């Protein structure tokens, strides 16, 4: 057990190291830097002296590895550095933005898990026209580009029907109902594909489980269908599905970026886009760091769920 924990820690640290170092290198390769970004946003043209002075002010005149070393040092003290432009601590920026992103992503994963599982079980049981219809709907859900669907969903549910707000984000601590309403449309949009994804995985997995001998034996022992499907078969089918949910979560981190803008959700993805455009290295690295930590945590949760679901893994 201890060994497993240590191995997990080591690989997590290695991953964070690679990701953050990669951000430093990639951003430094990009044409221009934060100084040009600031100067051209302020006055358009600038002298070499102005440029040098701005670089010095921003502290980006040192070699890359030195800056990375400093960054690591600050990280060791629990800081992610400061925004080059506003001076706001990056940890604070990322913290503010994490919750909206997670709200949408976790909401989508939950909705997809429940609805997708239900559809998947139904699909595994029923073949024939109903099953094929389910397949078709699933595939269509997977195929619709979320950014396009978002446009239509806003137009329909927010503008025409006025059921839900067209965008924005509300702090759940202040107004839980408002929060739910605010994330409803983004979650709905992202769920179209995710439900289909989960349903498909569940169906395949359930179909495989249902064809196993032990299911026949459960029937032979006279257990009711409900118990067989939802207790026994689903528990076994859930093992690959949980992996897929983890993958879904990680994919949604990227997918959410596409629709955050349309729904004006102040999420991490939006922040990443802005920061990359302005060469705001501390923020970019902070976002990449945060994404990676989320990925690591999700993978850990998947591992734990795995252990819980599959006694063979638990023993190993």
């Amino acid at each position, binding site marked *: 057990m201890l060994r497993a924990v240590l191995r997990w820690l080591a690989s997590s640290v*290695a*991953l964070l190291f*690679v*990701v953050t170092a*990669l951000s430093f290198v*990639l*951003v430094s390769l*990009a*044409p221009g830097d934060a100084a040009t970004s600031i100067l051209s946003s302020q006055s358009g043209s600038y002298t070499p002296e102005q440029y040098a002075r701005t670089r010095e002010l921003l502290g980006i005149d040192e070699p890359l590895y030195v800056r990375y070393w400093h960054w690591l040092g600050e990280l060791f003290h629990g800081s992610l550095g400061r925004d080059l432009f506003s001076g706001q601590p990056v940890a604070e920026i990322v913290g503010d933005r994490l919750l909206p992103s997670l709200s949408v992503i976790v909401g989508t994963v939950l909705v997809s898990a429940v609805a997708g599982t239900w559809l998947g079980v139904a699909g595994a*049981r029923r073949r*024939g026209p109903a*099953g094929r219809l389910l397949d078709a709907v699933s*595939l*269509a859900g*997977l*195929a*619709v*580009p979320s*950014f*396009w669907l978002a*446009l*239509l969903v*806003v*137009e329909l549910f927010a*503008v025409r029907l006025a059921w839900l707000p067209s965008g924005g984000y509300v702090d759940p601590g202040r107004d839980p109902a408002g929060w739910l309403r605010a994330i409803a449309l983004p979650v709905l949009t992202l769920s179209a594909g995710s439900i289909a994804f989960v349903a498909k995985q569940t169906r395949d997995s359930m*179909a*495989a489980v*249902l*064809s*196993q*001998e032990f*299911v026949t*034996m459960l*029937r*032979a*022992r*006279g*257990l009711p*269908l409900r*118990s*067989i499907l939802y207790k*026994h078969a689903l*528990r*076994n089918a859930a093992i690959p599905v949980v992996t897929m949910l983890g993958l879904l979560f*990680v994919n949604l*981190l990227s997918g959410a970026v*596409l629709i955050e803008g*349309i729904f004006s959700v102040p999420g991490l993805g939006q922040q*990443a*886009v802005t920061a*990359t455009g302005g060469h705001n290295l501390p923020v*970019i690295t902070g976002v*990449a760091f945060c*994404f990676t930590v989320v*990925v690591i945590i999700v*993978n850990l949760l998947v591992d734990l769920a795995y252990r819980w679901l*599959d*006694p*063979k893994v638990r*023993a190993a």
Partner: protein
Amino acid sequence: MSISLIATDAPPSVRPARRSRWRRLWRSGPGLAAGAFLLALTAATVCVRWVAPADPERQDLAAALAGPGAAHWLGTDRLGRDVLSRLLYGAQVTLVSVVEAVAVFVVLGVTLGVTAGHLGGWADRAISWLADLLLALPGIVMLLMVLAVFPGNTAATMVVLGVISAPMLLRVARGVTMSVKRELYVRAARLSGLGEARIMVRHVLPRLAGPILVQVSLFAATAVLVQGALSFLGLSAPETEGPSWGNMIAQAAQVTGEDLWLAVPTGAMLTLTVLALGVFGDAVRDVTAEHREPVARPRPARPHTAPAAPEEPAESPAPLLSVDGLTIEFSAPGGPVTVVRDVSFSVAAGECVGVIGESGSGKTMIARSLLGLLPAGGAVTAGAARFRPGAGPVLDLTRLDERGFGRVRGRRIALVSQEPGSGLDPAFRVGGQVAEVIRRHTPMSRRQAAREAVELLRTVRLTDPERVARRYPHELSGGMAQRVAIALALAGKPELLVADEPTTALDVTVQAEILDLLRDLRRRLGMAVILVTHDWGVLADICDRAVVVYAGEVVEQAGVEDLYADPRHPYTRALLEANPHLAVAGQDLPTIAGTVPSPGRWSPGCRFRPRCRFAADECAAGTIPLTGGSGDRVTRCIRAEEVAAL
């Protein structure tokens, strides 16, 4: 028959003749349609100059945002350009992007995957670690940073997408390579001096083709979406470089409040393309997957509708179970196939009847039909199986629905299957599984059921039942698992136990213990047993009578001792001679030449004729009837007297 839980398994005996994979793909409607769409789209993209109705850049500012009409079938955009033409030209960007991304994906994924799978060891570990790392990278951040380095460069993003997605293909390629490497014929090829490169080309790569195609079509769908999204975000393929689907939607997004139509054609096109790739990938998967799904879904053969035959007046005490003219059919693409025909036998209360035959003879189907557990597509189409439980009305097991069986399974008739381990739910502890079945049949508290479960485990002679109860199936040995399976079968206190090859998967000493247990339980509990086996030793050990089946028919039925001493059917005789228990030391064990013919290929007349050393011309003429002998013996052989006389 009732609804089937399982839709994926074709009964092994009626698997359709192997057809070419590609022909099967051709036969799958949606896959074909998707392939055709993709082909047409590619063709239109390549020949766009001749296909597109107008110049995609030709503006008509006066006709901006015109709806669909005769002049512009799909309307015009904000600068009055023909949407249909732009859609077709925009496909070029998509096509080129997909090709770039897929090229990187395939080269990287296959090379690394095959290398890892082939070399194994540290190379495998290093490559797998790399794959894990790539998968954990925050994809969107990587793409954004790469776009900062190569502003607006679609190719760069597609290369990165290919790289960060390659682990998916890598894992598949690695898995296939490893499994191929382990296969016998490849080992044989290597031993026979075939070079590694040739093995790769001749054995590994062909096997990879299917899985690669599946992964590629799914990844291509991803690439289409990602390229569209980046272009929509304005991060690559800007409008000034020509139409792309992404920038067309981006333009439409600016005017949704005014004119929603502009968003429709492009979004629909994007969706259709991704859909087609997905459907195509699925179709390829279905065709190439190892567990081949039947092309046509099995429809249950028509259940029998003949009126129930009036029950003969009971003479002596009626048997517990009397099977009468049982016929089982499976649906198959070429029409229903009979796998069991006109089988009759009976089981008295407390009696043990063996059903013996080679695999493929239909004996398992007979056993399972009694519990309504035929695989998908199978159904009893004629005959009856009257079951007279100690209490309650007589039931015809061939006419029960799922609810009816709910009252029979486990409680009146129980089943023990061949594979002890796979008969248990791997996810739950043994004790819990036993308790659940106990509670199902006898209402009681959870705690009490748990105690009962331990007791039951003790009954099947498991040492330390408390500990076994806490274990998971994978922690049990085969013998322990089979004892647990028997305990589960006993949980409902059934009157009839159907044991389907209960010892086949066990090693010899354990076999004996299990048989001993069964014999003992039968004596103590007064259960009747139907024992399905191919093993004379097992049969002799506990059965009173035996039914010999061949190719779906009963060929002989007699008391076990009579059968041993005086087999009347050539098949029974051949089986007995092939029995290892009776082998004479130092002599080669005789075998029966040939195999059981698969259903639908039964020869007319006597089905055993092609393998029978007594076969004569008249054996081929007409159906051979079952003829009675002394006592309750019956035989299906016109030369039975001669066989017996030997």
